[in-house]
């Protein structure tokens, strides 16, 4: 498989590829579409001259083009059959030229220093060379029809025709109808060709002119000029080639380069010499474009209907290009563009217009010699050599040079986006838009050079082209004032939702140990001093209403009564209860009772025992111990005391002792004395055992804290006697002073109790007031802060 070297990176690629696999550059220049494979000419390589007969024709109205490969002998064809298809003006030209002697073939562009190889480099063809096939047909047709136009005849005379050219090739004879060419040449002289901006791709001295273009004609065109004029000039008749000095140019071509044409044999073709129809467009364009010959080679359009038959004959399929080495590198970038296909006549400067052309094969110089035209027919050949395919050639580079954005009209007119939508566009979109001009610039960068006209190519300079400071893009969101306000308010709303709401009303005071110590110290002093000194600070006594009732009940007991005593108080409150119960028990002991002690508290029996042992003369008593079950146990005991409490604390059967002799039911007791600090316990005994007492009174000695719950039972008559707390005991003790001499326990506690209680009241009052003032000030300060 043939390898193609990339013109940009120089790396080898397969010839089947159109773009380089490494850098993506085009391997094949943008030339006129041609199904033939043409090997591209790489930079540095010398272009290889090709003969027109070997250049494949473009699209032709007469079937598929056939390209003649190098080494192939063009087959002669009788183009007389195609005579009817020739345009009339071409026939006229042919007739006119048939009358004029063949001119000396001229080497086109020989003196202009044309960098591209021209037909002048090749050896001139002998005058008696065999006409190429395509020209031979023309000659035969010309004999039968009108005379060859002068311009064609002049071409025939001037363009040298190789002797070895195929017989089928008919020389193009310049005729007098080429006055217009002279005019072109005249105009060319008057108006110098403007040069393109910047450095031309080729030296100024090598600016292509008409003469240079003519010099570029292959050898066959020069051979045709040397051939003799045919008897019957066809539309295009190739005159026998004559040796044409390189300085001589066809008149029509000389006019292109703006120099005075020495040879005036060729009358300028004008409208009168032209057929009834106008000049071919491609010629007129060529005339016009020759005036403004720039490195951007103009587009030459050759209308299909006006292409001569001899041109159509070249529109044949070219055989596959043989694997030959690439064409020699051109001296200039433009040279690389002039890729020619075998069998296809195309000047190098026109080769760049062919797009996607296959790597052209440069035919051997021998092939080019064989296909050379007569010298006199060089001009005609050049004119005629502008094949149909040239008309199809469009400088795609020019098309692609146009801005990509301007060439395409948007189908949908851009809508002006509102500011808030524009602000929401991502930064990448903004950068893409700003990058568009750069891309457009890149699109426009393919100007000049061997890749002129191509788009999407890498810049010539290494790297990414000219270094520029990157454009700074703002990262700030583009927002209007109103949008900012809305965003700020939304942010506040969201922040307010996420803020934890403080708990209201939960004020936790810090515990102060100092205050506790102060309170403790005050109370200790208040209670300890009276106890220690025995001072009496509280005069008088208080006699509650229930005192007399209770004393009356005890006084009313018979002698030696059996009394059930319930010790249901806790050790912690033993001080109050023992102080309150002592005068009552002392009063009861005056009756010499038989006591049965019971407790529903686990510590009750021990408390009772210790209490009884403090009595100076303790009475006989039976300790029934602990009664489990709470109210259920009380109820059970009330229903059947011997069954509920069978044994004493010592383990002796209780109900067989002398103390409890004759006692079988709760109602057998003379009285029930309940000592409790717990109102619930008192209620339990009242509620559970009260129904089973019958006439036996229930007397309760309670703590001050139980009075609110127990007093209703006293008020309702469910209990008969009530002694409440230390005050009740003090009063009862005071009532017993007549009997019991000396200060009792309650009297000793009373002064300390009063002092301590008074100081506690003072501290509570002072502290409460200070707390109220502080709270009020805090509330006021909060109100002021809120206001």
């Amino acid at each position, binding site marked *: 498989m043939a390898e193609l070297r990339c013109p940009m990176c120089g790396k080898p690629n397969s010839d089947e590829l159109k773009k380089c696999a490494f850098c993506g550059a085009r391997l094949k220049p943008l030339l006129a579409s041609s199904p033939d494979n043409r090997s591209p000419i790489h930079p540095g390589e010398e272009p290889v001259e090709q003969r027109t007969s070997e250049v494949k024709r473009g699209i032709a109205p007469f079937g598929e083009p056939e390209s003649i490969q190098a080494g192939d002998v063009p087959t002669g064809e009788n183009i007389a059959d195609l005579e009817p298809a020739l345009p009339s003006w071409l026939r006229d030209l042919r007739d006119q030229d048939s009358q004029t002697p063949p001119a000396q073939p001229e080497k086109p562009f020989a003196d202009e220093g044309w960098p591209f190889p021209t037909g002048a480099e090749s050896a001139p063809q002998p005058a008696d060379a065999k006409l190429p096939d395509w020209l031979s047909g023309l000659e035969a047709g010309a004999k039968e029809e009108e005379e060859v136009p002068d311009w064609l005849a002049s071409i025939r005379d001037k363009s040298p025709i190789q002797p070895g050219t195929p017989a089928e090739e008919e020389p193009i004879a310049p005729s007098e109808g080429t006055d217009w060419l002279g005019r072109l040449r005249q105009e060319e002289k008057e108006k110098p060709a403007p040069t393109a901006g910047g450095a031309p791709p080729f030296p100024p001295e090598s600016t292509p002119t008409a003469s240079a273009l003519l010099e570029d004609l292959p050898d066959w065109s020069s051979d045709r000029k040397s051939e003799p004029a045919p008897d019957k000039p066809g539309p295009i008749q190739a005159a026998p080639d004559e040796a044409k000095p390189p300085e001589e140019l066809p008149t029509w071509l000389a006019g292109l380069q703006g120099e005075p044409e020495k040879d005036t044999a060729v009358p300028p073709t004008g409208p009168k010499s032209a057929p009834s129809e106008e000049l071919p467009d491609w010629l007129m364009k060529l005339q016009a474009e020759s005036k403004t010959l720039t490195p951007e080679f103009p587009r030459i359009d050759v209308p299909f209907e006006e292409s001569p038959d001899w041109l159509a004959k070249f529109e044949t399929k070219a055989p596959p290009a043989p694997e030959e080495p690439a064409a020699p590198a051109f001296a200039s970038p433009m040279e690389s563009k002039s890729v020619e296909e075998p069998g296809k006549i195309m000047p190098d400067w026109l080769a760049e217009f062919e797009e996607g052309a296959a790597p052209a094969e440069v035919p051997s110089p021998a092939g080019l010699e064989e296909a050379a035209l007569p010298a006199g027919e060089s001009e005609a050949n050049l004119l005629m050599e502008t094949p149909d395919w040239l008309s199809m050639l469009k400088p795609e580079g020019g098309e692609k040079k146009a801005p990509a954005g301007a060439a395409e009209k948007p189908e949908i007119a851009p809508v002006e986006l509102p500011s808030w939508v524009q602000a929401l566009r991502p930064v990448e979109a903004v950068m893409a838009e700003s990058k568009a001009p750069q891309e457009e610039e890149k699109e426009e960068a393919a100007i000049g050079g061997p890749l002129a006209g191509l788009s999407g190519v890498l810049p010539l300079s290494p790297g990414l082209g000219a270094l520029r400071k990157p454009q700074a893009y703002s990262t700030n969101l583009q927002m209007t004032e109103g949008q900012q306000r809305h965003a700020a308010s939304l942010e506040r709303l969201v922040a307010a939702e996420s803020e934890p709401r403080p708990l209201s009303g939960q004020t936790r005071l810090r515990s102060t140990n100092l205050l506790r110590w102060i309170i403790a110290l005050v109370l200790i002093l208040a209670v300890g001093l009276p106890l220690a000194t025995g001072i009496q600070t509280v005069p008088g006594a208080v006699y509650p209403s229930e005192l007399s009732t209770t004393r009356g009940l005890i006084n009313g007991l018979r002698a030696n009564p059996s009394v059930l005593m319930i010790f249901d108080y*806790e050790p912690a409150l033993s001080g109050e209860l023992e102080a309150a119960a002592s005068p009552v028990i002392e009063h009861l002991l005056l009756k010499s009772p038989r006591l049965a002690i019971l407790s529903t508290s686990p510590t009750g029996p021990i408390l009772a025992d210790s209490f009884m042992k403090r009595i100076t003369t303790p009475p006989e008593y039976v300790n029934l111990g602990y009664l489990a*079950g709470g109210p259920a146990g009380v109820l059970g005991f009330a229903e059947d005391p011997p069954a509920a409490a069978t044994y004493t604390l010592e383990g002796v059967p209780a109900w067989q002792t002398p103390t409890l002799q004759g006692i079988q039911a709760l109602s057998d007791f003379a009285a029930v004395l309940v000592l409790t600090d717990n109102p619930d316990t008192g209620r339990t005994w009242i509620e559970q055992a009260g129904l089973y007492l019958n006439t036996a009174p229930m007397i309760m000695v309670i703590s001050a804290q139980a009075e609110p719950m127990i007093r209703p039972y006293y008020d309702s008559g469910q209990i008969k006697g009530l002694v409440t707390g230390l005050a009740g005991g003090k009063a009862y003790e005071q009532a017993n002073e007549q009997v019991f001499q000396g200060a009792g326990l309650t009297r000793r506690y009373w002064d300390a109790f009063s002092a301590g209680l008074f100081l506690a009241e003072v501290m509570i009052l002072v502290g409460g007031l200070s707390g109220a003032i502080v709270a009020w000030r805090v509330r006021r300060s909060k109100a002021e802060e809120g206001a």
Partner: protein
Amino acid sequence: MNWVGLAGFGLVILSAILMAGLVFLRRKSTPAFREIPAFARLRKAIGLAVEEGSRLHISLGRGGLTTPQSAAELAGLEMLRRLSELTAASDRPPVATSGDGAVTILSQDTLLSSGQAALSTGYGATAARLTGLTPFSYAAGALPVMHDENPSANVLMGNFGVEVALLTDAAERGNTSTLAGSDNLPAQAILYASVQDPLIGEELYAAGTYLKARPFHSASLTVQDILRWLIVIGILVGALLKLAGVL
């Protein structure tokens, strides 16, 4: 049966009928009760305990199941069950203290069953503790639990006496939140002075409803309200009749 007994029996039957009827009639609707700030703070305290990975201290008091104060103990046990379910996800399970043997056994069973239901392995046999047999010994035994275990909240629900002041004072020293309720009047007075949100009167028995409204709990509160109104009406009518000389 005397008329007092008959009236009492009738009151029990009426309450049972009302409760059953309300349970079946109010299956789809939850009655609206007044907001009790104590339970609202308790819910927050539970959440904080779970988040902090700390434990709750639930104290059930010194009452027994065979005493009239058993209802308060049962209310405390219901609170214990509910709290143990709510704090099952916490790193440390709650600890229960009580002053009665039977209540200690029941609280231990409650904790274990709740822990098994929650697939929690933190509930052990010592999650429920008997701290003392007397009120003050019970309070003295509960103080180390409040100091050493570092609970994030204390829930005192049950039968407490004046010894509850020691517990609330220890909670204030530890700067922990306390929810307390007792059926004992002196204890309620102490709780009002020493606790931020005390449960006064019947609020102790509404804990189950406010923590997780179940049909029977809601119905029981409604029945209490109905009976209370009936008693109020009866007292007023009786007072009027007494004034009129009829009674």
